[in-house]
């Protein structure tokens, strides 16, 4: 059983991506018998090139991917460098998990309700400070340059980076920063040049995944992103759902280009890394002592604290809209409250939430079983994962969803596999497994295996030791990984829509369908429920070990 776990895992991760890509590449290069096109041609790519403003779409995707990664990484690094031993760090540590659990779309709506011209901020200061009795004609969200989208992405990626950095922090933080400090470096700067590079090495793959995600994001881009022209991923969706069916080969070509853009962004980042390391080393070797510790701290604090604060206010605004009656500009709060939306939608909400819960539960549960089996297999056989294996693990996160999901969908359809729970859970597993594995392997590697060896010496078998020592001692991170997998599954839109054949509407597909109508009360209601589901699971994941081990101090300090 343990031996086949890694093979299983790799099959789940590679198979769908490669097969999906194949079924996109074929029509992109002109072979689509159903539409009467046979053979090889580059026509679709020429047609794509002729589309108005397509270069701008491509540039947007590229630029957004790189900037999102750079800004959020910088802010999180500055924050941890400056606040890792402070009270604020503990505050952020407890606050960021709910933010992490919030689906991207919900966070984006919350942000929009906050910053748009008729949004909460301007209502707060109007008309007293601004004199506005009508919302100002300012281009804040959906701006053509994509700044609102960038902000939305950064806010959502900051908790993600906090998670991966916090997971690898205990493994590398040691005496390094203390050594550097003796020689007259500011403590924050010292941490940045001594400990952070080691952390960076460990979180490189998650950052690549972040870049890939940001270059091809769909839901957040629909809400906050520019529309004329939109980022490439949205352009692909539009082409895919064009009633003119000949546009489909162009959509396939665009999906290939999207893959290329993501790769290009990754290569750029990789080159940037090299340059950064080269000059960074020179600066460090020169013994330069940066005296801006306070500035670093300020930037990090405002960035990370602001991101988390804004998400919470956004969540509050979603809740407020869900119960608002008439709410005219510039009233700060609705003139009347009304629970009619909740009342009218209750049965529907229950139905689609339940379905999402079932899918998310199994997609995360199976991911946990597979990841645990593989990790235990690695331990028992003393195998260290090669770079390649790790890369494969991240493949579904590095290849843009829009580039392979349509192809995967065709395959499922072909074999009549779409439209049932098994396939849906499988499709979600592709995305939950890498994160669950990543998070678990950190705690796995940080575990003192002498506990296991001493238990073995007491005459207990490998399996016995696994179940009675390793599992309970790692229960907390395992449950956390489960909650993360659950949250990731809840947020999946494209896979649910495509593989579910539309017959399995979940809270997420409903939220997006309703959002297409722009009704804020519904958006508020559905986004709130969509946020609460993973939220509750995170809370339960924290509660179970707290209850089980309430009198076990050794397991209660995270």
């Amino acid at each position: 059983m343990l031996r086949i776990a890694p093979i299983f895992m790799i099959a789940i991760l590679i198979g769908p991506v490669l097969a999906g890509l194949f079924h996109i590449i074929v029509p992109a290069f002109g072979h689509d018998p159903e539409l009467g096109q046979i053979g090889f041609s580059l026509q679709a790519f020429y047609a794509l090139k002729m589309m108005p403003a397509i270069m701008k779409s491509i540039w947007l995707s590229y630029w957004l991917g790189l900037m999102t990664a750079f800004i959020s990484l910088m802010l999180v690094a500055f924050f941890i460098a400056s606040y890792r031993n402070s009270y604020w760090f503990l505050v952020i540590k407890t606050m960021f998990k709910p933010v992490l659990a919030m689906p991207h779309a919900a966070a984006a709506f919350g942000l929009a309700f906050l910053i748009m011209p008729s949004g909460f901020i301007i209502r707060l200061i109007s008309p007293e400070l601004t004199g506005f009795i009508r919302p100002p004609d300012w281009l804040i969200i959906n701006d053509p340059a994509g700044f609102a989208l960038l902000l939305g992405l950064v806010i959502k990626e900051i908790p993600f980076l906090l998670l991966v950095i916090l997971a690898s922090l205990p493994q590398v933080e040691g005496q390094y920063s203390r050594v550097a400090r003796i020689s007259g470096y500011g403590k924050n700067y010292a941490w940045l040049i001594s400990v952070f590079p080691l952390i960076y090495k460990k979180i490189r793959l998650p950052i690549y995944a972040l870049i890939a995600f940001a270059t091809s994001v769909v839901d957040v881009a629909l809400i906050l992103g520019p529309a004329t022209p939109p980022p490439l991923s949205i352009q692909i969706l539009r082409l895919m759902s064009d009633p003119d069916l000949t546009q489909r080969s162009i959509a396939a070509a665009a999906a290939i280009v999207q893959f290329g853009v993501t790769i290009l962004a990754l290569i750029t980042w990789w080159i940037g890394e090299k340059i950064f390391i080269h000059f960074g080393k020179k600066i460090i070797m020169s013994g330069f002592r940066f005296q801006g510790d306070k500035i670093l701290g300020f930037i990090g604090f405002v960035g990370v604290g602001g991101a988390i604060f804004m998400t919470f206010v956004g969540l509050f605004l979603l809740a407020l809209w869900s119960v608002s009656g008439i709410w005219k500009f510039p009233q700060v709060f609705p003139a009347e409250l009304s629970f009619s939306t909740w009342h009218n939608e209750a049965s529907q909400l229950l139905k689609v939430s339940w379905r999402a819960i079932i899918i998310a539960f199994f997609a995360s549960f199976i991911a946990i079983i597979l990841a645990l089996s593989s990790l235990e297999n690695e331990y028992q056989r003393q195998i260290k994962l090669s770079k390649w294996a790790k890369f494969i693990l991240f493949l579904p996160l590095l290849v843009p969803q829009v580039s392979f999901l349509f192809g995967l969908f065709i395959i499922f359809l072909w074999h009549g596999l779409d439209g049932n729970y098994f396939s849906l859970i499988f499709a979600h597993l592709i995305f939950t497994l890498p994160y669950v594995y990543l998070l678990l392997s950190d705690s796995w590697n940080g575990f003192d295996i002498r506990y296991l060896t001493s238990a073995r010496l007491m005459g207990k078998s490998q399996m016995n030791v696994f179940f009675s020592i390793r599992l309970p001692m790692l229960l907390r991170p395992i449950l956390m990984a489960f909650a993360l997998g659950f949250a990731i599954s809840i947020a999946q839109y494209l896979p649910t829509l495509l593989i579910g054949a539309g017959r399995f509407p979940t809270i997420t597909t409903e939220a997006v369908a309703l959002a297409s109508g722009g009704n804020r009360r519904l958006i508020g209601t559905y986004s709130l429920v969509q946020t609460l589901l993973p939220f509750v699971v995170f809370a339960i994941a924290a509660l179970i070990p707290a209850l089980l081990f309430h009198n076990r101090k050794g397991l209660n300090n995270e």
Partner: protein
Amino acid sequence: MSEAGLNLNNVRIKINGVSLLNIDEKIADGEILTLMGPSGCGKSTLINAICGFLPKGFSCEGEISLDGQNITDLPAEKRKLGVLFQDPLLFPHFDVKENIMFALPSGGAKSERLEKAYQLLKNVNMQDYARRDVATLSGGQKARIALARTLASNPKALLLDEPFSKLDEKLRENVRQSVFEVIRGQNLPTLLVTHDKADAKATNGKIITL
């Protein structure tokens, strides 16, 4: 053939084929053999080799036998060894008596096992702490529980890997005395690995310096 004690018969430990440590010693029942040397000389690796947990890249030649049985190729759980590490490594999700009971050989009625666990705790003077959360114990108490737990699994030999090095100075002497007292009462072949001369002295036994 049916020699009692722990027999390290021409044991050679190599790392990637390069020789690291050779030893050829017999430890009789009740005898404590001390192995001294600086860190990195392979002391701890020897303990690992005896337990059957050699890390990748290391190899072990020769024969290890216990009470006449060749254990060189047995899985760890069948070697009947008791080990004390630098850290007490008490399982944090169990309380004190559960830690002991986990180590007891399986079988027997629950009341019987509980009785045994209390006996073992009494042996190290910790019977009043049976229901305590292990995280709330002091370093010395933890060390004694760790010893009781090691003895609970009915080992045929004891291996001590710098068992006192993490205790603070004042405590160390005290714990050392009580631990060796208990060990002497067991009449087991014991191998101590340390870099602390005081440890070695307290054993009143043979000392090998690497």
